[in-house]
């Protein structure tokens, strides 16, 4: 088999996933946080596709497509909710959306 070994893909996937998590934890704009989630899902897609390629088998590709579909649907719903949040509060700073606590 040519190309880089599977482990490299998996490490890249893990790094991307970790970056997504870090983005979620530390960015302040809700939109950016949302993009971080997309990054996490794409990391997962990468590992699916890498496995699929390695195993010479199509299931992983299929799963990756489903993940994309779900990500798209989540984006649609998510942006709609973000819009209503913005309408009500006129801010997209995640720290200011904390009226319910304890």
């Amino acid at each position, binding site marked *: 088999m040519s190309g880089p070994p599977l482990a490299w893909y998996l490490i890249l996937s893990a790094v991307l996933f970790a970056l997504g*998590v870090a983005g*979620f*934890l*530390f960015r302040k704009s809700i939109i950016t*946080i949302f993009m971080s989630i997309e990054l996490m899902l794409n990391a997962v897609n990468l590992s699916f596709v890498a496995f699929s390629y390695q195993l010479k088998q199509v299931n992983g590709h299929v799963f990756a497509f489903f993940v994309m579909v779900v990500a798209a649907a989540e984006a649609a719903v998510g942006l709609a909710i973000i819009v209503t949040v913005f309408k009500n509060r006129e801010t997209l700073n*995640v*720290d200011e*959306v*904390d*009226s*319910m*606590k*304890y």
Partner: protein
Amino acid sequence: MNFLDQIWLIPLFPLFGAVVMLLFGSKLDPQPASDVAVAPGVELTHDGHEAAHHHHGHTHEHAHEHVTGHDHHGGGLKTVVSLLCPGMVLLSLIWSAGAVLQLANVPERSHEVIQFTWLAGLPFHMAGGRLATFSADWGFLLDPLSSVMILVVTGIGFLIHVYSTGYMAHDNGYYRFFGYLNLFVFFMLMLVLANNYALMFVGWEGVGLCSYLLIGFYFHKKSAGDAGKKAFVVNRVGDAGFILGMLLMFSVLGTVKFVDVRQILGSGNFRAETAGFGVLSTMALLLFIGATGKSAQIPLYVWLPDAMEGPTPVSALIHAATMVTAGVYMVARSAALYQLTPHTSTIVASVGAFTAILAATIALVQNDIKRVLAYSTVSQLGYMFLALGVGAYWVAIFHLFTHAFFKALLFLGSGSVIHAVSGEQDMRRMGGLKDKIPITHWTMFVAALAIAGIPGFAGFFSKDEILWQAYSSQQGSNALYVVGLLTAGLTAFYMWRLMHMTFYGRSRVAPEIEAHIHESPASMTVPLTLLAIGSVLAGWIGTPRLWGMSGWFRGFEQWLEPSFASAAVEAVKEGAHDASTEGILMGVSIALALIGIGIARYCYHIRPEIPGAIEARCGPIHRTLSNKWYVDEIYDFLFVNGFAKGGGTLLGAFDRNVIDGGVNGAGWFTRFSSSFSIWWDTWIVDGTVRLTSLLVKVSSYPVRIVQTGRVQAYALFVVVGALAFFGYYLAR
């Protein structure tokens, strides 16, 4: 009619009453809801007790004006409630009596009615590895033990219901009160009729709930709310013990059905754990922890005196005659288990004895009439556990039976007194009521003799039997006997102190109340009279063996024989002690009771005339004021100055007679010990309860504080959780 197969109906009657009252009561109630919400005449700024007095005062003055009880604005409803709720309990009583009579003809004297499988059988691997199938039935068991209990619950319950129709006649929330009361009777009957521990637990929790609701019945009183909370917190500890004990029983014995448990334990596969503290002892101890919660034993007794915030009939029914004896019943029900666990039995007996004497010393100095009775109840329950601990199960049930009569009577009588003096509960503001409320006086007189242990009255037979068993039983000891004996003397003293402060001597009642003093209506005095008759007769079904009366001879023991199989144990024991010992001990306890009564009379009847005479010169205005403190002065005179003086002159002169000095010394000691008990009660026990409650509440905050409301903090916890998982992998 075959009552035996219809025992499942017995609890359903009061349940029906409760459902009707709670769901439709408010529709029947002609009073607008606002009246219910804010009772008139209650000033919330007063401290709890004061508010209670005011409240009582108002309602009972109303009651007085309408003593005949007909035709009030709520006439129609009141009639319905007054007929329906006691009627339902009466039906239960009839069915119970019928069933018990028929039970006497059943040779093995045990009858089980199983309605259906409640907790269905799952295959289950027991602790030993054996595969068992569990099932807990929705089933009822009538045997001699439960027969005694249902008769007490329905019989006393019925009388108290009738009494309540008079006592609560003009209270707001009349229907609600009876709804709760009927619900209580339902759960109590479930508790005593259940044929397994799981179903018993249904009743166990249910009575706790009703007790809680009824303690807080005067919800506008803060003290009532606090008392309910205290009862609640304390009982949770007990419940945890019960549940754990029950689960342990599941896993060790493979069943929780009474009959099977007894059979398995008696089969010889389990030997008595004399050597060490084994699994059976743990099981028994856990169950006993449950019992201490319900039956107000050390260390969980603190809720009971506070529970007196509830209406007086509730104190009589729930906190004296029935619910608090559930723990005694449960331990007696588990007799087969406790017979195999001598170590736990010793704990039971010691806790019982210690509770008995501790509560009795506290009762010595209480001034609230209901609190005296409350501590007295704790003390008498201690007696019952003492009997259980020394293996005299039938005696415990016997005392439970007689105690139900005279203690219910004492409470109802005190209710009648409180009613008469317009809600006053402080005995320092009573006195001289003997001729004004004669029926109440004479019935309470009987009850006081009964609890003091005067021969011929109910309490004598059962208490004397407990003392004898504590002395003679193999598990008994001289120490237990002496503690029991001292408690008997103290009991006689505090009970007659109560009688003297309430009924005899000079009246210390406020003049404006004095004018209103009246005997209670017939709906209250008739139950009192019936209970007084019971307080005399109830003991005669278990006369001492010593008396050798044929016919009634130990009828109670023989009746309970199938439940405890105690005859064999008894025979061994009787051989070891001769009749003369029993006779001497009986004489000692009677003498002690008489001495206790005598001292009470001396201190509260003969002596008070001296300060009274001095006071007469100060004029009628001052008298009212000083009356309020008069008992404190007696205390100071007798116990503080008296002792110092007595000690000081001891060298020089013998002008104070020996008896006086002895009395004073004993008085000082009891005062000291009860102050200590009260201190212990207030600061250590009460404090612990409060602290637990506070700790639970405070522990809530660290958990809540991390919930900052910020999404990213939440996500951080998710990540931390995931990292912790990885950390576990690395550290493994």
